[in-house]
């Protein structure tokens, strides 16, 4: 660990700055990198080599595809149709919107999903005289659960998939079932603890009438753009093509990053969108943040710091595979509840690799533990995931104030349920694999 002290200090300072939101997280990470470059801890070429271009390509590609698809208005139209299908039934609002949120967040990023869903949910529930808090919290939590199911659903999965070389299919096949059970468990908990709030309204004529008026208002308010069918067809075709290429990755040999960026460029050419405007919708700060973190963690890896942590912290628990798997799951879950799960995942990947070198665990189970922990753990608190923060922020703009504790009262129990489900699933999977 020679010469490791400086990178460790810089890394910790960056982590504190990010966690306490002292400065923009991309600025914090890149400033840390600049300090390392100035002090000659790392050279420019080495630093660039630490950036995982596969992850950046995948993120950039998906951001571009989603930005274009959002312009079609198709997701808003879908949400309005779902609102109509609920006919104002509180339980149907919870279930139908949760299904859509989970499915959308499996293929779009979670923040985009809640940006589409939450305004309509708030409009619908407040208009009906229901308390929108429970619905807002549930959609934020469900978006994090849904995003866990696929390679492209949540940033930790994108990072794990790209850095480790796990395919889209591998994510769906291995995480699809536990995520579905977590989803059902979360909804069941919400229903059981709030049964009074989910009573049907179809015996109350005045309520039914209000709902019909409300749905008409939602149609007027949200369906503000005429759907361009040609544009929509091109957009959805390209999304379908991307998913097809993700699924057939083992046959085509195309990595997810290459697929996403290729389809994104194809979509730009087909739709002829204004690229300058489109670029304004890309989250460049997120991409820069990822790049900076990859370099910071790369330096720590090069200085054998992560090897030291793996041996002296994680491998101290012994060589029982069940203990190792569950420890990775629960540590990831708890830490992700309080810290940003992106830097945590980037830091954990080399540690998990070292753990696997010492204690090989079959079927990538340790990676699934990291993925489940990092994604599901984001639900523990209001600050655990970007989707939570954005949902609460949107609720506030609609005069619905959700406190940290109010959020946690619902989300923490669901996190506990989902982590227990994940523990059972991983233990059974390990038992079958050994």
């Amino acid at each position, binding site marked *: 660990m020679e010469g490791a002290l400086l990178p460790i200090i810089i890394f910790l300072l960056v982590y504190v700055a990010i966690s306490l939101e002292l400065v923009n997280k991309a600025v914090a990470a890149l400033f840390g990198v600049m300090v390392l470059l100035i002090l000659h801890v790392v050279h420019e070429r080495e630093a660039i080599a630490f950036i995982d271009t596969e992850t950046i390509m995948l993120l950039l590609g998906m951001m571009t595809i989603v930005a274009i698809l959002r312009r079609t208005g198709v997701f808003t139209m879908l949400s309005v149709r779902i609102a109509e299908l609920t006919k104002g039934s509180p339980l149907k609002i919870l279930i139908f919107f949760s299904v859509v949120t989970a499915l959308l967040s499996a293929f779009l990023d979670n923040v985009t999903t809640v940006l589409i869903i939450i305004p309509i949910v708030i409009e619908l529930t407040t208009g009906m005289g229901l308390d929108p808090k429970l619905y807002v919290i549930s959609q934020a939590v469900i978006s994090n659960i849904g995003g866990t199911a696929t390679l492209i659903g949540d940033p930790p999965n994108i990072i794990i998939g790209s850095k480790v070389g796990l395919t889209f299919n591998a994510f769906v096949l291995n995480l699809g079932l536990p995520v579905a059970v977590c989803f059902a468990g979360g909804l069941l908990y919400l229903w059981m603890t709030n049964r009074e709030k989910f009573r049907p309204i*179809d015996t109350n004529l005045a309520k039914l009438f209000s709902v019909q008026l409300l749905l008409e208002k939602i149609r007027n308010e949200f369906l503000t753009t005429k759907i361009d069918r040609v544009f929509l067809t091109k957009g959805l075709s390209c999304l379908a093509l991307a998913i097809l290429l993700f699924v057939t990755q083992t046959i085509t040999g195309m990595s997810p990053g290459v697929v996403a960026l290729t389809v994104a460029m194809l979509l730009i050419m087909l739709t002829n969108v204004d690229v300058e405007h489109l670029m304004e919708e890309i989250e460049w700060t997120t991409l820069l943040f990822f790049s900076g973190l990859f370099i910071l963690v790369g330096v720590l890896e090069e200085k054998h710091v992560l090897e030291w942590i793996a041996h002296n912290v994680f491998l101290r628990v012994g060589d029982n595979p069940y203990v190792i798997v569950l420890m990775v799951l629960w540590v990831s879950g708890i830490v992700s509840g309080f810290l940003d799960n992106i830097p945590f995942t980037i830091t954990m990947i080399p540690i998990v690799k070292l753990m696997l070198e010492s204690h090989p665990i079959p079927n990538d189970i340790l990676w699934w533990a990291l993925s489940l922990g990092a994604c599901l753990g984001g639900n523990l608190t209001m600050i655990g995931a970007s989707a939570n923060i954005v949902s609460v922020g949107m609720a506030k703009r609609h005069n619905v104030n959700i406190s940290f504790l109010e959020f946690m009262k619902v989300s923490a129990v669901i996190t506990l349920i989902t982590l227990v489900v994940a523990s059972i699933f991983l233990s059974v999977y390990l038992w079958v694999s050994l």
Partner: protein
Amino acid sequence: MKEIDRQNLFKLFRDHGDVLGTHGTTQVALESFRRSIQDLRCSAGKLEPLVTELVETIKNTEPQVTPLVHLIEDFEKEMTGQYSDDCQATKNKIVGALTSKIDRLKTIGEQMVVSGLKCIDRYDVIIVYSTSASIRDTLVQANKIGKPFEVLILKQDFTKTRKLIWTAHGENIDHQVIPEYNLSNFIVKANKFFLGTISITPDHRAVCPLGAAEVVGLCHLNKIPIYLFANSLKFSHKPSSAHRIHEKHENRTEGHTSYSMTIHSHCLVDLDHVDFIVREDGIIPREEFKKQFKL
């Protein structure tokens, strides 16, 4: 019905009124009534009290939607003695009665366009303020038949003007959007003012969208003819004070200054300032409508 639910419902009516106008709101309300009856699950005995409760609520919204009140009163008369032990049969009768009201409303809407077209001459420059469906449809139809004219859309709260701007834009109607407070700079250019209303009252007033009274005043002073689009359903037998114009008090903070502001949902326009009333049966000048409707 709980008071909070009633207030929520009244707000929904106002929101629809802002976007769709009175005619559109009446149609949406009747269609919503019809759909909610179809979705309702209850015993035959409970149906009448539930319908009565809803009808009373609809008749007392803030403000009252006069065409809807008239149609609902007709509906009540039609349904008197029609409630039976067969719940489904009664529901079918309710749906049938509501459908006939919707059809009547549609017919009146079509007739209003025919009357409205007579108000537009070649090269007119028309000020339009409210989101009245009759005015919108008239402008669209006039444009379709090739009448050259221009519309000055007075932009107020965007929600209220949005539909008008979309229509003008979507139908390629020659138009210019100007802020309502900037009308004085365009008043020389305009030669007509089209206005919608929610009701016309026996005390010689029209309940109009908020801000309309000021525009009417300016147009009247500048001798610009004012056309008030008001079909027969908008004529009320209650005085303007009984129309339950919604009043709310808002606490606001702007530029480190906190204050309380009172806002009404609608305003009253004196019919002495109106030159023509456009009804489904034709255009009636001021002198005549005073005598004809005993205002």
